[in-house]
């Protein structure tokens, strides 16, 4: 099977190549801004380099990806927002099936069989896709390959991509110290905190444990107490720390789906009926305003 891999984030390409190597021979598509990293690529047989299009040019990438994908049985993309924006358009233009956020895949009698999370994280769907097909791969599920470096470099030219829109302004977002998805200890805060100033209780705990503070959707989206990058959940960041402390968050499904890969989950909430307790290893039914300062104090002792 001929597999094409592309990601805007070259550090994710390793995982995608690894996923692709399981089902076929991999070619990695590199854009003008990515080609100088060619020597670091492992596991892909071939690199397809496009000198005229940069990875931040979404509007032009649609045409490039559609063209190059045509000659491949499978397109493997990452699961970030840019990739999702492209994936549906490329899939419809080539009339191909798609499966998003797959956690495993294998080929079976000319078909691709994938597993992916669905129903807000309550179920895994086993899906069968006829080839040619497109998948996006869930972050962190495949280990980047060791393997040899690229053996063949092919250049690709694209005659006049369609200008669908213009980016007139681009602002970098503020970055968190350690990204949430890489943190070993995460403190997730929810609506149980009554005021923004009270979040300092969580920051103190994070400091004591060497962790990072994240939050539920309402704190980032509605109250704007924390940056969007701190928002944990199916439409935010998915995390997989060794220890997650969920404080004052009820555990709505869309949040719970984002914390599933955590090793140990501790919930602190004063409502014994909160769904988060169903989804935790240890639950403390107590007022966070009483428990948190005591916990920090005890840890500092």
């Amino acid at each position, binding site marked *: 099977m001929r597999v094409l891999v592309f990601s805007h984030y070259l550090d994710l390409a390793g995982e995608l190549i690894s996923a692709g190597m399981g089902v076929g021979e991999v070619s990695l598509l590199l854009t003008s801004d990515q080609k100088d990293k060619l020597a670091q690529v492992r596991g892909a047989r071939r690199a397809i380099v496009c000198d005229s299009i940069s990875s931040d040019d979404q509007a032009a990438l649609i045409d490039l990806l559609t063209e190059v994908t045509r000659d491949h049985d499978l397109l493997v993309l990452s699961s970030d*927002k*840019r990739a*999702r*924006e492209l*994936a*549906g*358009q490329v*899939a*419809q233009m080539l*009339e*191909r*099936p*798609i*499966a*998003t956020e797959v956690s495993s895949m294998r080929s079976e009698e000319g078909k691709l069989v994938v597993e992916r*999370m*669905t*129903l*807000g*994280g*309550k*179920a*895994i*769907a*086993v*899906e*069968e*896709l*006829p080839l040619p097909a497109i998948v996006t791969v869930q972050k962190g599920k495949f280990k980047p390959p060791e393997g040899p470096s690229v053996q063949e470099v092919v250049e690709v030219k694209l005659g006049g991509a369609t200008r*669908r*829109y*213009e*980016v*007139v*302004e*681009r*602002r*970098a*977002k503020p970055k968190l110290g350690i990204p949430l998805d890489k943190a070993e200890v995460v403190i997730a805060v929810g609506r149980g905190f009554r005021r923004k100033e009270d979040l300092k209780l969580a920051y103190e705990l994070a400091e004591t*444990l060497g962790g990072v503070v994240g939050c539920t*959707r309402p704190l980032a*989206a*509605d109250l704007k107490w924390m940056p*969007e990058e701190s928002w944990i959940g*199916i*439409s935010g960041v998915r995390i997989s720390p060794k*220890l997650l402390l969920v404080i004052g968050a009820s555990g709505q499904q869309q949040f719970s789906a984002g914390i*599933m890969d955590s090793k140990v989950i*501790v919930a602190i909430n004063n409502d014994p009926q909160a769904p988060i*307790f169903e989804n*935790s*290893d*240890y*639950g*403390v*039914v107590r007022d966070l305003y009483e*428990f948190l300062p005591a*916990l920090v104090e*005890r*840890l500092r002792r």
Partner: protein
Amino acid sequence: MDIAVLVKQSLDVQQLVVDRSSGKIYLDEAPTKAGDIEINAAEEAVRIKERVGGKATAIMLSCWGTSGRRIKEARESLTRLLAMGLDEAILLLGSQGMDSYAASKVIAEEVRAGSYQLVLAGEGSEDNFSGILPGRVAAELEWPYVAYATAIEVSGNELKVTRSLEDYDEVISLRLPAVISVTQEINQPRIPTVLHIMKAAKKPIVQKEVGSFSPKVKVRELKTLKVERRREIIEGDLDESLEKLLKFLKSEGLIEVRS
């Protein structure tokens, strides 16, 4: 401006019962509802209409069966959207086995049949959250597509869309017609009053059977997720529960603490 809002009647995953021991997932028993993000999309359509005039129509494709109960749930969702200020609603009766390929063919056909210049959708549905459908519809219509909008400005034939990516915020300028998907940050949807809901009951909901497009993706199996949590509740007074928690964390090798 003539706006179509794509609304999925999603399975209410919060109320979906899953029996981990038997592996049974009670799909038919769970209620369906319009996704929260699509309600944001509807609110944005109403706001655009209030600024520049025009008409806004909800297009809903039902894909959790067409039983009397499912149709009733779908019509209730649409009535609520009409009460928020949408003018009309179209309910397309799809089948449960539809994939995003077939669904976007059906939806694009309906959009083509109207005189829409703008299609608004949510960034992802509540039950599946693959976020693929709006892009597919755009490609099918051969319209430009911008995802993850947090603000939309309309002036004449031009749109200025602010959108939020993981690492950047971008402002994009494009011409109509276009497909835009929104995130929940874009607005705070209005809550319709009882009076609005009663009035909305008189607005039209057109129900249609849809053409058949065979799906490409086949769902072989739905499995319950095997993430077993210990679900231990730590009880006792403050000091006792602190000690118990720290003991657990220590035994898991997660913290070092002097006793």
